[in-house]
């Protein structure tokens, strides 16, 4: 079972964990992305996320399905937020439940790493003295 969502409201971390609770689970691995207060020494004021929503959901669902296929995991929740986020807020939560922890760790890492590679979501870092799209230029 997978639950993939793109939301413009604050993510509910506990709800994501509850979403993967399952009697057969021996463990739940959770990744929570948070907005960091600095990048390469510059103070970050906020991040602005935007998405190509239909394609982002399609890719996020595909990644969750790939993880289910590659590892013996039973439940996955993948929620990503878009819009303006302040320092300390949460843009992404991934929860994975499996009978044994190794699969949960591996699948969770695969999901966040692959999301960063191919899901059409973009973030602009707004600094006290300017702004730039992350990873846009070599």
């Amino acid at each position, binding site marked *: 079972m997978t639950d993939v969502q793109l939301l413009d409201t604050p993510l509910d971390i506990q709800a994501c964990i509850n979403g993967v609770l399952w009697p057969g689970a021996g463990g739940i691995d959770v990744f929570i992305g948070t907005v960091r207060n600095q990048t390469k020494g510059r103070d970050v004021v906020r991040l602005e996320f935007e998405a190509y929503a239909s394609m982002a959901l399609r890719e996020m669902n595909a990644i969750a399905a790939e993880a289910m296929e590659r590892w013996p995991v039973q439940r996955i929740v993948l929620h990503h937020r878009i819009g303006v986020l302040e320092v300390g807020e949460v843009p992404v939560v991934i929860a994975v439940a499996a009978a044994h922890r190794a699969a949960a760790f591996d699948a969770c890492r695969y999901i966040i790493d692959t999301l*960063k590679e191919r*899901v*059409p979501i973009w973030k602009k870092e707004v600094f006290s003295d300017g702004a730039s799209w992350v990873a846009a230029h070599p």
Partner: protein
Amino acid sequence: MTVNILAFGIAREIVGGSSLRMEVGDAATVGALKAVLEERYPALRELASLLIAQDAEFASPADPLRPGSELALIPPVSGG
């Protein structure tokens, strides 16, 4: 034929809007469209990468443009 192209992130800022319409040859490919766009908006060439999606799937340069499809400019992604 006329195609509609969605633009996101830095590509949206470079082309000056979240979508644009363009006239392309009937046998145009994704690669040809990209070349025309880069000609018109040279700042697109400075990006670390620029992919094009057709109907919400990553497309290859050789893919033909399908009439009425939804095209999108995908600059380097940075979710998470």
